[in-house]
């Protein structure tokens, strides 16, 4: 493992300022981050490219053919897991950054950290509201870093407990949503039963030729009935539901697309974060902190142990993913029946699925880390991971320009396979770009900008690689 230049080499108390290390020096973290950022596009493309929920649900309902099989595989192996990987590495990197010893004349690491991650929130806002990637995650990661960094001194055991606790709450969130649906259904059936009784009564009265006003449901009972009916109607698969979205996404006017996407972006930034994201990301960030502290990323375990962990994690993940997809199919067939009969929603184990699978993937990387076969490809992934922010923002730029109306307008015009082909192209280009860029420069352009604004004027104003080590700048006074 490479270490940042030792502090002793610097004249203490002098005016020289030690340049912070260029990036995390633990290669496994860069590799995993790279894989996470690249892999995430396989799922993001559904939204970029207009492979809508309706289309997905229809595939799940037909459950036949290659289209379905590939989609199922992506659901099992990719959906949510890539973000989990990114968040795990994010947590580990937080601990690394904050554990840096403060040098004389330097700002405390925590102060820089706060600035840095507040800026990440700004990057997220830019990605969401300017580049128009409505599922941006930088915004959330920035907020989570600010919320959770105070826990970086916690002992590994406490971090593990925090991980489990957050995961349980996250599962609970899915359960409570479902419990609400069950409650709604209960009210609906009560209202419907009453309505039938009234109907029967009035028929009986009519037969006896009694003139009486027919009883009707109260306003609230009607609301109860309509609420459930609306929910079921919303769940019904219907490709026509996409029409409006497609029309608006293909609009050539940036302002129109902006307006159309605003509610989705805001609901992702506010509602999703509060209800789900905060628990999900907290669980993964705590897990990353824990894994880092027990030495997971620095080859604490043997290769055999990593393999075992990988197999265990992926197996658990696949089983739970199968459970989720299977019961989602059932729920799509008849949601009323599902709510009536099933105690748990199909998403109940989704949090555990994501965590287990991500842990499995990370272990797999660790197991293969020093094998010759993978060294080339891993170093390419590491390059992507070092430039994760740049690559992530580039994905937004490339995909919006390709799919959205003010770009080339391919939204909802490609088949699922074509979308993945597109993804493969983008990922290949990104990997090559990252490798080449890092041959010449120390940081990616977005990373450079990020560091520049976080550290203020204390950094050398260049991205160029410097041949002199250790990297020091002398402040002229």
């Amino acid at each position, binding site marked *: 493992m490479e270490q940042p230049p030792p502090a002793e080499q610097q004249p203490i108390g002098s005016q020289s300022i030690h340049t912070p290390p260029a990036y995390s020096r633990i290669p496994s973290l860069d590799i995993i981050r790279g894989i996470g950022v690249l892999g995430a596009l396989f799922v993001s493309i559904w939204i970029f490219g207009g492979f809508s929920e309706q289309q997905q649900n229809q595939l799940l309902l037909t459950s036949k053919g290659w289209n379905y099989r590939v989609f199922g595989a992506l659901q099992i192996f990719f959906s949510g897991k890539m973000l989990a990987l990114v968040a795990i590495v994010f947590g580990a990197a937080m601990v690394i950054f904050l554990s840096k010893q403060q040098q004389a004349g330097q700002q405390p690491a925590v*102060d820089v950290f*706060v600035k840095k991650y507040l800026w990440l929130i700004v990057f997220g806002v830019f990605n969401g509201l300017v580049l128009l990637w409505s599922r941006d995650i930088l915004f959330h990661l920035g907020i989570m870093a600010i*919320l959770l960094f*105070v826990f970086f001194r916690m002992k590994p055991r406490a971090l593990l407990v925090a991980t489990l606790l957050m995961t349980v709450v996250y599962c609970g969130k899915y359960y409570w949503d479902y419990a609400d649906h069950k409650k709604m259904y209960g009210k609906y059936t009560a209202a419907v039963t009453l309505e039938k009784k009234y109907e029967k009564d009035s028929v009986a009265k009519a037969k006896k030729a009694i003139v009486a006003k027919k009883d009707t449901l109260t*306003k609230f009972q009607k609301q109860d009935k309509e609420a459930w009916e609306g929910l079921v109607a919303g769940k019904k698969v219907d490709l026509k539901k996409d029409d409006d979205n497609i029309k608006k996404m293909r609009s050539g006017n940036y302002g129109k697309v902006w307006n159309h996407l605003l509610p989705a972006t805001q609901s992702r930034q*506010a509602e999703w974060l509060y*209800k789900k994201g905060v628990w999900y990301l907290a669980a993964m960030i705590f897990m990353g902190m824990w894994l880092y502290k027990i030495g997971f990323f620095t080859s604490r375990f043997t290769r055999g142990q990593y393999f075992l962990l990988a197999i265990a994690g992926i197996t658990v993940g696949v089983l739970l993913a199968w459970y989720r997809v299977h019961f989602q199919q059932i729920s799509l067939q008849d949601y009323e029946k599902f709510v009536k009969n099933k105690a748990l929603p199909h998403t109940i184990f989704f949090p555990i699925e994501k965590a287990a699978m991500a842990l499995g993937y990370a272990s797999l990387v660790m197991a293969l880390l020093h094998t010759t076969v993978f060294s080339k490809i891993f170093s390419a992934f590491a390059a992507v991971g070092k430039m994760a922010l740049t690559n992530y923002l580039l994905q937004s730029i490339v995909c919006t320009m390709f799919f959205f109306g003010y770009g080339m307008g391919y939204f909802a015009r490609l088949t699922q396979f074509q979308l993945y082909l597109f993804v493969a192209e983008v990922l290949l280009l990104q990997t090559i770009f990252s490798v080449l860029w890092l041959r010449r420069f120390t940081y990616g352009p977005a990373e450079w900008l990020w560091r520049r604004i976080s550290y203020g004027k204390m950094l050398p104003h260049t991205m160029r690689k410097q041949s002199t080590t250790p990297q020091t700048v002398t402040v002229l006074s």
Partner: protein
Amino acid sequence: MDINLPQDFSGNNSNPQFHSTTTQTQVTQKPVDKAERISTVDMIRGVALCGILLMNIPGFGIHWSAFDRMIRGPQNTADFYTMEVISVFFEGTMRGLFSMLFGAGMLLFTMNKKETLGGPSVAELYYRRLLLLVAFGVFNAYILLWQGDILFFYGLCGMLLYPFRKTAAKWLFALGILWICFNMIKGQINYNETRDKRAAYNEAVQAKKEGKPLTDEQKSAKAEWLQRENWRPDSMEVQRDISKVRGSYATVFNYYLPRNSGGEIWGTYHWAFWDCVAMMLIGMAFFRWGYFSNKPRTSTYIMGLLVGYGIGIPIGYIMFSKGMIEGTLHQGLYVDAYTVNHQTLYDVKRFFLCLGHASLIMLVFRSNLLNWLMKGLANVGQMAFTNYLMQSIICTLIFHGYGLGFYNKLQFHQLYYVVGGVWIFQLITSSIWLKYYRFGPFEWLWRSMTYWKKQPMRLK
């Protein structure tokens, strides 16, 4: 009463390094000592804390439809006058002052501490403190069942302030004003949507007058506007709400659950991030200028009073009489008449009224006329956190069903008798408590959790 700042804490000092030249060199991190506290800051905070109940009491004690009733009702009742006074003089200002002092408190907190190697840094302590505040806010909303909780938002907003702790006062002030401008633009965008809807309605009406057949779009635009203008609180829904709040703890809990989560989600995003952060930044600037710490000359305070009230009160009056009353009674005509909503002036009014209030308090303090009251208010302010939570506890127990169940039983103006009662209670209890203890009970809990160590509480 120690009213003067130590020289190094001078608000006029804009040297970014001034905090590290503190005369008291502290070896380890510890909470701000009692002697270091600036009691004028506490005093203003005490006023704001008491004043905040003026705005909150309707939320505790009466169904919101009461406002609709009062606005549409006769204008010579005690209820209406009460509403008028509260709206013109206090609406938003007490929270404004409170936010300003929250910003000032952030500066106090970070100024009084020096970085120590090895131990938790100032930033860590600050963020731990705020994270706990967020947790207390959740507790206040979901457990104490106060749907108007503000601690949650303050905790989150405070997290944005830390990088500005060394920023010069004029820049903080400029940033705060900029924030207000953003908020005004945001408000205007919302109002423009209303105007668009009204315009579509007018167009439909015009078309009908000319005898043209209406398109579907015009029909729905017309219906939508009429529904909006004729909207009234539904009496059945009001009754249901009231019976819920008068119910058991579980009933009230379930009733407020979606309201609390919805409030925290959209409140953070659309409201607190603008409303609170702007005033916090301005408060930091004012603190830097020493405005809350008795620094300026008396003439400055007099000027602040005149400018603040001179501009703030007329705007407040126009906002109430035109914006609120006219805007509700004749919504359509109002929208036709005004390109810019009166509500847009909210932050401007608030800023000037806050300036006026703060100046007034400082002038009363300097005049030595009401020393006993000022001392009492400083005590209330020193225990602001405890007193804020106590307001939730007392008022929920008065109004919710699992307490005395007075919800919606008092008339609007009668609510303010309760406010008076709570004020007297808090003035007395705070003064007594601080005779024996260093901090209020919730302050003690908060500190102990922040430093993760039991803090001494008793005064020797």
